[in-house]
């Protein structure tokens, strides 16, 4: 089944003055377990598309179905709850809450979901092991490197077992070694947990690791390549 499905998604900024078509009729279906990169030149609409799929933003036109549900019907507050339950986010930067430790950051969404302490502890341990940071549980974000912070962000996104994970240029601020490391982790989690990843990137090394590459140009899909 399609985890994500968009139909004719259009996003217009400044509709009254000089309209900017950030997205212009995007149809995309993403299935469970995909490892998909959204690529394209700067300004092509990658961030806009991810935000709309993730329910952070609303399309000007078109429909977005996540797990079969039309999310354009949801109110702002319902959208927040929806994101909490179904979507894991990894942003380019400022992912973590600076006053919380790595462990507390990872369990934060689970706390919002009122999961039990045993469940949280177990999941945090499992994920921090998995991203190779089991010795950094009590470190604050400022005490971690950029790559380590992004790994914690991936663990945080995965913790509540979302339907899929959206990552907007997750490696943009990382050196090549950290980038490799993060991709290894994401690819492994994709395999082991069959977690769906959708990420945008400019980085050729990241594009090389993707199993599907969707290219956006001027708000439209120009290529859609599957490499299975």
């Amino acid at each position, binding site marked *: 089944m399609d985890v994500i499905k968009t139909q004719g998604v259009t996003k217009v900024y400044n509709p009254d003055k000089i309209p900017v078509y950030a997205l212009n009729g995007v149809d995309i279906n993403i299935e469970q377990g995909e490892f998909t990169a959204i690529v394209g030149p700067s300004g092509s609409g990658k961030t806009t598309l991810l935000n709309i799929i993730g329910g952070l933003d609303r399309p000007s036109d078109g429909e977005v179905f996540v797990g079969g549900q039309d999310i354009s019907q949801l109110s702002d507050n319902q959208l927040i*709850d929806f994101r909490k339950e179904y979507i894991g986010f990894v942003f380019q930067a400022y992912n973590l809450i600076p006053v919380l430790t790595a462990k507390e950051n990872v369990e934060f969404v689970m706390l919002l979901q009122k999961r039990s302490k045993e469940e949280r502890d177990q999941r945090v341990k499992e994920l921090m092991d998995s991203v190779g940071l089991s010795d950094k549980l009590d470190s604050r974000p400022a005490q971690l490197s950029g790559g380590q912070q992004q790994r914690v962000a991936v663990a945080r996104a995965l913790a509540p077992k979302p339907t899929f994970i959206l990552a907007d240029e997750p490696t943009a601020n990382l050196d090549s070694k950290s980038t490799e490391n993060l991709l290894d982790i994401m690819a492994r989690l994709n395999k082991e947990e069959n977690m769906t990843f959708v990420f945008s990137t400019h980085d050729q090394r990241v594009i090389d690791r993707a199993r599907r590459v969707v290219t956006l140009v001027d708000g439209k899909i120009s290529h859609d390549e599957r490499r299975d």
Partner: protein
Amino acid sequence: MIPILAWRNLWRNPTRTLVLIGAIALGVWAGLFMTGFATGMIKSYISNAIDQIVSHIQVHHPNFSEDQDVKFRLDQPDQHAAKIAEKEEVKAVVVRTLATGMISSAKGARGIRVKGISPAEESKVTGLDQKIVEGEYLAGKRKNEILISRALAEKLKVKIRSKLVLNMQDLEGEITPAAFRVVGIFHTGNKPFDEGHVFVQRKDLNRLLTLTSEGRIDPTTLGHEIALLLHDTKNIPAIQSAMAQPDWKVENYKEISPDLELYESQMGFVSTIYLSIIMLALTFGIINTMLMAVLERIRELGMLMGIGMNKLKVFLMIMLEAIFLGAVAAPIGLALGSLTIYFLGQSGLDLSMYSDSLEMYGMSPVVYFDVPSKVYWQIPVFVACTAILAALYPAYKAIKLKPVEAIRKI
């Protein structure tokens, strides 16, 4: 989780937080200090007025207070006074003869109220004997001794043993002159009172006033005022009604001196006024700081809402940050403030530098700080309300953020 987050957020910028905590604590301290000072002043004014002048209860002829004419005398005041004095609630009783007249020396003359007193009883009711600063209290060694205040002595340029002439209306309305000799000079600390009153022996005054064309009225029965001091003010209403008589006007100190009642009622809300002003000023400080704290966290707040923290929780978090701020600051201010009040309540704040102007208003030069106990719950309530009020706008700002825009912001 939200409280932990709020608490840690509070300490992200420790200097800023400490400055604000200091400001709130200082505000609380100042509120206590000013309340303590004002309450101490008012209490001292009231107790001075009661102790030195009005006592707790006074009895007059119903017409006396309007006219002050000697003919509005009480009927058998001494018999009644003796009976009241037997009550255990009553601490002391004095019967006075009052007259209005003119006092003159070689250097000047002034209108004056003459109080004819029984020295022993008077000292129990008003402690007049303690107020003698020169010479001695009325001893009755000779006839026509008079006590005048230092202020009046200076005005009339007289000293101990100087002779003064009193011109008063007697019971028939005739002016009776009489010579008196100054035996003592008093100083109560209440300038208007001091300048307007002199004390003589009641028996001397009665002898002068009771001489009529048809012969002398029994001088021992003339009296215009009974003044009572009780052990406890809560018995005032009971004693007041026990003393009710036809043709007697029995008044308590609030009825005699309505300003005392006004001051007493003011004591209840000085703290409210001071705290309102201080907290209003603090509100702007808190709004400013909380707004700064929200604006510099826009991206983070966007991220929090992005990953699923709902608006209610974000709102609550910002409110809690302000409430914690108050919760830390208020106890500090309260502790420092109550220590200050305690010390200045014991030792008093000496304002003798300004004692001249204080005496104008009948206050003592040393103010013993005191705060009504309700202030100790009023302050936490005020601080909490201030914090909540001041955080409303910043918290509203925070939840109005759109996650996409907030995250995009660099």
